[in-house]
């Protein structure tokens, strides 16, 4: 701005140009901000612990949440030849049943694997997951990660 004022060409016309540029740039920035804000309103998902979810009780039902925990050994049960699965997930704060259907079960899913499930609590208290992410603690680092 300073440099442009020192120049002879810095006439009102150049100021008008700057204004136009500012308006155009501002419109783009506002547009993107609008996109981000509206998208945030509809697609945020709370990340909570199993304990927090259990504490909320039936009231939690309506809300879409994300829960991380470990798959309890011996709890995995396949339904419809593997189209759906049922298992228990626990973290330090509690344990809850999960039912997952509608997507692929990741190859690395299994007992004691760390998982992230997304969905809501159903009327029977089972967590109805629409997304299942498995995070293999030992993924590429076979050893030393068993406790993770």
């Amino acid at each position: 701005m300073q440099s442009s004022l020192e120049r002879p060409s810095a006439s009102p016309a150049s100021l008008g140009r700057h204004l136009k540029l500012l308006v155009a740039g501002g419109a783009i920035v506002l547009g993107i901000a609008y996109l981000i804000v509206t998208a945030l309103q509809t697609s945020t998902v709370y990340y909570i612990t199993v304990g927090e979810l259990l504490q909320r009780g039936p009231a939690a039902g309506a809300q879409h949440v994300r829960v991380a925990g470990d798959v309890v050994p011996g709890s995995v049960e396949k339904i419809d030849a593997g189209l759906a699965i049922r298992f228990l997930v626990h973290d330090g704060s509690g344990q809850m049943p999960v039912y997952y259907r509608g997507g692929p079960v990741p190859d690395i899913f299994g007992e004691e694997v760390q998982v992230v499930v997304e969905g809501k609590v159903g009327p029977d208290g089972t967590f109805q997951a629409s997304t299942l992410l498995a995070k293999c603690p030992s993924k590429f680092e076979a050893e030393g990660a068993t406790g993770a």
Partner: protein
Amino acid sequence: MADFGHIAIVAAFVIAAYAAIAAPLGVRLRAPELLASAYNAVLGVAILLSVASATLLLAFLTNDFSIKYVAEHSSREMPLSLVAAAFYGGQAGSLLYWGWTLSLFSALVALQQRRTDPTLMAYVHMTLMGVMTFFGLILGFVASPFEKMPVVPANGLGLNPLLYDLGMLYHPPMLLAGYMSWTIPFAFAVAALATGRLDVEWIKSTRRYALVAWAILGIGNMLGGWWAYRVLGWGGYWGWDPVENSAIMPWLIGTAFIHSVMIQERRGMLKVWNMALVLVTFYLAIFGTFVVRSGVINSVHSFAQSAIGPYFLGFLTLVVASTLSLLFWRLPRLRSENQLDSLLSREASFLVNNLLFLGLVFAIFWGTIFPLVSEAVQGTKITVGPPFFNQVAGPILVVLIALMGVGPLMPWRKGRAESLLRLFVPPVAFGVLVAAAVGLVKGFDQPKALASFGACAFVTATIATELFKGTLARRRATGENLALALGNLVSRNNRRYGGYVVHLGVVMIAVAVTASTAYQAERSAQLRPGESLQVAEYRLTFNGLRERAEPGVRIVEAQLAVEADRELVGTLITDKRFYRGFERQPSTSVGIRTTPLDDLYVVLAGWEADGSASFMVFVNPLVIWIWLGGIVCAAGALVAMWPQARPSLASVGAPTRGLAVGRA
């Protein structure tokens, strides 16, 4: 062997640190012998890290399980073809690969630019070797690939079956090399700031390196998507996972840079902006390596949490702080030589392009780190999933695509509204027509998809017109036939037309991504042998399960007969593989039948004792055009970065015939 490799790495670390100090010191003290020794050091580091890498490779080949890294990522049964995947399959190996390729690129740059101004090159070497020192530190003392086992095991643990795929052989090294190669443009930017020679020269020497880095990172992203599509079995190629996001962000900023750099070359504008873009691209590349390796953000990809996270964060902070202060110090010298004349100009359309790319990256970055931010601010972790990214990125990308058609038609400086209107009416009309036509066939319930198709058609029309006009003009001027005129047009103006080819590739990808997102069909079912399932135009009949064994692996495979429009078109096989040592983690192979129109994508989900099996079936329209578009983009990039033998001499005078003959 372990000691040998370790010593090579430590020596590389010491020499890199020496070069990073000697180079600027040589400039200060005006001591050419110091500069020469820094130059030699750059070459020396490349040799030492090559030795270290060769040592690790040899350890894999000879099954030297006294080295922890080898014992954990390999076994006696592992086929030789997987050695490369094992090499960078783990953390230490992938960092060694990063450092090694950086040392090679640094040496290459040093050799190529021997005749470039030694002061500038001294600071380039300083920066490259500074980054190198950091990797040497990590590799030598924090995450060493040559750490020894306390007891030598009889056999290794073997490579994780998830890595048993061709895509895995190519996509991680390409991505890592993509991250790494942005160090070169970054080094030139730092050198320009340090020397204060901020004219167009540094841009010229950086431009081609930036284009190479951009291409490598782009190919890496593409291969990553290809691997995910073929291996992960959820029917898609892009899931907005934090690791994917951090790989696409530097590429997007890099894309903004290779566009806005043209304005600086042409008009001497946007100097600070370009500088900032190069710096930010490098920050994001380091951030990407950090995200992949630190586990701070919950990701499917996240690897075991490790000690290197804090080191990367510290390094990133140091780099950001030092380069930003350098930039502020030089701000007075980065004044623009010109001003924007009009909103109706190519400069303005590039500016809009840059703003959109930056906005897109901001949105992706924000969405990626949102869990961290919300936890810090509110105390609760809030995540945003793919819907957020799709909602934000979709519209921005459609506008960006449309801009690919606007930019090339805009004249530099100032365009006249009337003539531009004449120029734009036909392609815009074509775009609207195509969007309407697709709407009539597929319905108008997906307006975003139609907008995207319309934008793609508009761009295709403008590029075709440009090529056609250019070719005709050249034929008139030179008397060449059409094919020769087109060939010469492209080779004489390779940057421009290479750019158009890339744009065409992007259009192919955009059409395919839009179609496969908006019109994907999906069904899942449990089938007994002999039963069928109809998905879109395909009818699948389950022919039963078969179990067989190959060395080191037990395979359960399902066979399905595929009919399209009541005609048998083939069989598909999808299976689960149980590798020795990984029996609890079967690896699923997706059955894919590709045609130019769509992919039939079948995943074996599981089976029961009675022989019935369950499947997830997707019909993904046009997916092959994503990969083909990627190839077109890579080809375009190659055209654009091809060195001009005789820079623009031919375009000066009219009598080009003699020159044309001389070249042909």
